[in-house]
């Protein structure tokens, strides 16, 4: 079953997975490593570092998942492996 089309399908799926994983690492960890510096920026009373952990990263996760579901579905359809 490892036809060229399947291989290309899986490569695209895998690349999307790694992109998502990269964004996940960024919003889950990297940005919070700079919390002390970000806290010097205050917007609407929120220290920015605190804001990112309390709301910012969460919003990013939600948006990422809806985008991912659409993108992956696009890949499925392009390669004719989407469900009917």
């Amino acid at each position, binding site marked *: *079953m*490892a036809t060229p089309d*399947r291989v290309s*399908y*899986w490569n695209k*799926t*895998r690349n*999307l*997975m790694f992109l*998502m*994983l990269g*964004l*996940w690492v960024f*919003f*889950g*960890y990297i940005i*919070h*490593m700079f*919390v*002390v510096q970000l*806290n010097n920026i205050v*917007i*609407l*009373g*929120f*220290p920015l*570092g*605190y*804001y990112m*952990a*309390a*709301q910012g*990263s*969460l*919003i990013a*996760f*939600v948006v*990422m*998942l*809806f985008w*991912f*579901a659409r993108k*992956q*579905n696009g890949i*499925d359809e392009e390669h*004719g*492996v*989407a*469900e*009917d």
Partner: protein
Amino acid sequence: MANTTSGGSDFTANLGRIYAIYTGGFIAFIILMAIISAMGVPNVIIGYLFVAFTITIYAVIGILSRTMQVGEYYVAGRRVPAIYNGMATGADWMSGASFVGMAGTLYLLGYDGLAFVLGWTGGYVLVAILVAPYLRKFGAYTVPDFLSARYGGNLARFIGVIVLFSCSFTYVVAQIYATGIISARFLGLDFTVAVYVGLAGILVCSMLGGMRAVTWTQVAQYIVLIIAYLIPAIWMSTVKTGIPIPQLMQGQALQGIAALEAAQGIAVGHATPFSHGGYNALNYFLLILCLMVGTASLPHVLMRYFTTPSVREARVSVAWSLLFIFLLYFTAPAYAAFAKWTMLDLVASGLTPENITEKAGWMMRWAAADNALVQICGKAAVDAAAIAAACADQGVTQIAFSNINLNPDMIVLATPEMAGMPYVISGLVAAGGLAAALSTADGLLLAIANALSHDIYYKMIDQNAPTARRLVVSRVLLVLVAIAAAYVASTKPGDILAMVSWAFSLAAAGLFPALVLGVWWKRTNSAGAVAGMIAGFGLCMYYLLGTRYGAVGFYEMWSGLSTASPEAIAKFVDLKAAVAAAAPDAQAAAMTALDKHAQTMANWWGVKNLSAAAFGLPVGFLVMIVVSLLTKAPSPAMQEFIEELRVPRGKQMMEEKAA
């Protein structure tokens, strides 16, 4: 929906209307309660009505959804639309700990508590991209089902069941404990009795209809819990700032907190990172990791995605789940900030042992329900006399913020009283807390009972068991597990959040490598998977149990890796000498002191035991990869199986043979 044949499609088409009517009905009920409360009906009656009304609705849904079909019982017939499955997952996911405990933890830990908010949301990214769609394609009934198919046989299945049982059981105990606390406070029941009342509420939802009943009650429970969570937060935000958007006005609350903290000489600010409760940066990030990976491995969450009609719907459903969960989790920090602001204001208004009954009578009511919940000047604040005596002992005349010790598990439940809201809001919050705890307990119990009945009984003991007998066995096991969990909860073990976090580490270390590599790395074979699961889970369990229950021995064995300070080591030596020197009748007390101290030092590189998967997870991956490479590659048939798993199109791979 009482129809046990395919009549469900009619029901599915009308879902939107049914739940809209339900939501309207619930809001009307709240208004009715507010009216009769204003007419002078006593508070305890209002509390009873809230609990009775909501539990009755869950029970009615549970009974209407009863079923005798295996597919309905295990995976709700795979007909749950993405958005409703998202809502059900939200309720399944948000436990008593999220509802009752999280804002309290944020209140206490400030910035550092946000590790829980991040960890419990970000994990869904892993669920969506790595695991859920592939498990849906396979078409399993339980997570161990997949392990058995992918890793050829019952050994992998059995280890999967052990991991599932270990993490889900501690978790369900925490849920029943939460229902006990809530019922004890709002219904005035004895805690032990309250635990069994909670148990009845759980069983009525899950026993008759399995996954189908649990799904539709969880949707109803989500609606109750989110309303109950948002209303007090909106209320506080409106009272304090005039704008009813707590998430936005949290900024102003943070400023208010910072100003009051500075005025009262509190050194470590609410928004200061890495400085509360021993969360240094290392533990903060490791905890986030363990919670996120644990999310992607907890069987009761993953099995929710077995119920969607397709792989595509499963992916969208994860996004909906996170959106519904997000609504509560991005409110929690605001909730905590407003509650803290209110408390700091209360203290700033000049709180003394003489005027505390008048200014904060709620503290005494809570302390009376459970002595551990409110302590002032180090003693349970049961009445004015007790507070006066305790504070006189410590020479405190003006009660400061630091003199008041509130248990994090009560903050959310007590906030309405703290902020002076009418009692109807307290009743609503109690109903919300119950909904959160009951819905999670339902999901967990079902996960455990399904693993025992489907994986152990049907797949390993009697493969020829007829459908009717399988479902009876399933229900009997469900009741037995529930009773055992209620019994353990009635002994009041640990605090809720810590127990729940253990479950995450256990699931992460035991299941995550096997699930992820099973899909993403074809070379993983049975030997590797089995060895990796045992190594990861075993190491995680050893660290959890060793640092918590065998701290003295653990420290002595691994003193080279501990980050204990020289003073702590000197104190350890002294306490150990004291145990040796103690008279026989003082032996136990000396040992307790030694053990308590040892728990602060028993660690590897300072990692808290909440993050035990920090060791188990990498070891699990490593062992799985190394052993797989050293042994034979999976057969061509298995390679084909994985190819098939990776594409959404095509039949679902595991079919019920005698449907």
